[in-house]
């Protein structure tokens, strides 16, 4: 199997590394090989891109150059990083003038963007290895009801993410179903978690988040499963703020896809640092006998 350059991203690498630990466990069990590279910030498709699109292109292209130098594809653990790196590649491949301008800047630091590698989201890699995922499940999560949240940038814009149906995504559901858990449908599955707007306008962000959480609560889900660190943080850290503001008890724990799979593959909660979550999932773990 080919070896990927792992792009863990700033949030997972430098704030919530327990997600990287769970992801590496799952990759090991499934047989996905990765190695490190000195990548900078991707940079953020909601932050840095809004600040200056040219800087976003240049920094993103420089990261792609690092992987190109080794001739290896990038595997991203994060929706935002996958969106940026694929988006930069898309813009530069479809606009020769833009590519020329960015390459003039890159030449000054001794680099050149060629566009020779591919950027893959880890959900797509797991989906392509669904048989191996199935084969690695040793402790099926029977009885656990899971509401999935694929997030926005995993599949939108479909034009350059080319991952899943942009408004009716299925991949995350399919992978979660392999764990033996039950996927519960809820109306607002494709609604944005509102991470970006919450940073700028907390009031509006929480109003949007309430719609999302009410829908999840109504579905009767035990846990929320996500594949993006920004969404993870929105669910894990802002649920309490939301509960306080609207005087409602939400308290639904959130699991990264690779954390959920780790548990189903027999990895103990301590090994992957589940205790570092803000939302507590003691009762759910007891239900699973873990």
């Amino acid at each position, binding site marked *: 199997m080919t070896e990927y350059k792992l792009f863990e991203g700033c949030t997972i690498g*430098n704030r919530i590394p327990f997600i990287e630990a769970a992801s590496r466990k799952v990759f090991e069990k499934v047989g996905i090989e990765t190695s490190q590279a000195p990548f900078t910030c991707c940079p953020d498709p909601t932050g840095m891109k809004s600040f200056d699109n040219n800087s976003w292109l240049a920094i993103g292209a420089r990261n792609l150059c690092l992987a190109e130098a080794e001739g290896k594809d990038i595997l991203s653990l994060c929706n935002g990083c996958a969106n940026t790196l694929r988006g930069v590649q898309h813009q530069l491949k479809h606009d020769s003038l833009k590519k020329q301008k960015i390459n003039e800047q890159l030449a*000054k630091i001794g680099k050149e963007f060629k566009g020779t590698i591919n950027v893959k989201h880890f959900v797509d890699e797991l989906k392509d290895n669904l048989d191996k995922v199935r084969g690695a499940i040793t402790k099926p999560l029977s009885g656990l009801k899971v509401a999935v949240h694929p997030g926005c940038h995993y599949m939108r814009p479909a034009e350059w993410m080319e991952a899943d149906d942009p408004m009716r995504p299925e991949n995350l559901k399919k992978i979660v179903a392999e764990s033996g858990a039950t996927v519960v449908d809820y109306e607002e599955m494709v609604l944005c978690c509102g991470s970006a707007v919450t940073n700028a306008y907390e009031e509006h962000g929480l109003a949007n988040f309430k719609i999302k959480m009410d829908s999840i609560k109504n579905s009767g889900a035990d846990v929320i499963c996500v594949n993006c660190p920004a969404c993870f943080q929105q669910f894990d850290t802002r649920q309490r703020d939301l509960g306080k503001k609207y005087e409602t008890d939400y308290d639904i724990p959130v699991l990264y896809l690779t954390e959920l799979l780790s548990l189903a593959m027999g990895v103990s909660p301590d090994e992957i*640092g589940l205790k570092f979550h803000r939302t507590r999932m003691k009762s759910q773990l007891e239900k699973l006998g873990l």
Partner: protein
Amino acid sequence: MITDFEFRKQIMDFHVGSDLIKYCYQCSRCADNCPVTKVTTDFYGTTGYNPRGNILQALLGYKDMIFSADDLVIWGCTVCDTCDEVCPQNIELTEIFTLLKNMSIEQGRGPEFIYSQAKAIFENAKAIPSQPAIERRREQLGLPAVAAPDVNELQTLLKNIGADKKLK
């Protein structure tokens, strides 16, 4: 309302994969599906965040309406890309809103977190810099240290582009 022809030309000339903005017929599917419009707008759509309105005003060159009003007009966008998918004319709305946000930054406006993130990236080459407590946690979890990025090279790149002058 005054048409700013220079601004209008910038909008008309702007394209990422297409120049389809010219074909907007104001059907309002973007606003109907926008999560931020839903939580900020009254029944008549006269207040709050309105992607359809932004496209219309950009097309007409009404720069003042976009930039002199509340920052929410531009920065309410949460970059969920839903409008891009529901648009029957395949207009890349989010890319146009990115251009408007970039223009807003050039005027020294925009939310604080955008500036703080850009500054963190300029200074550390990471949006979230490495911290000793997290480094220890990585070790406890059996993870290798994050490969250190080349901050100097990134700063050279950003200085040559002139992005450092936009920082606050």
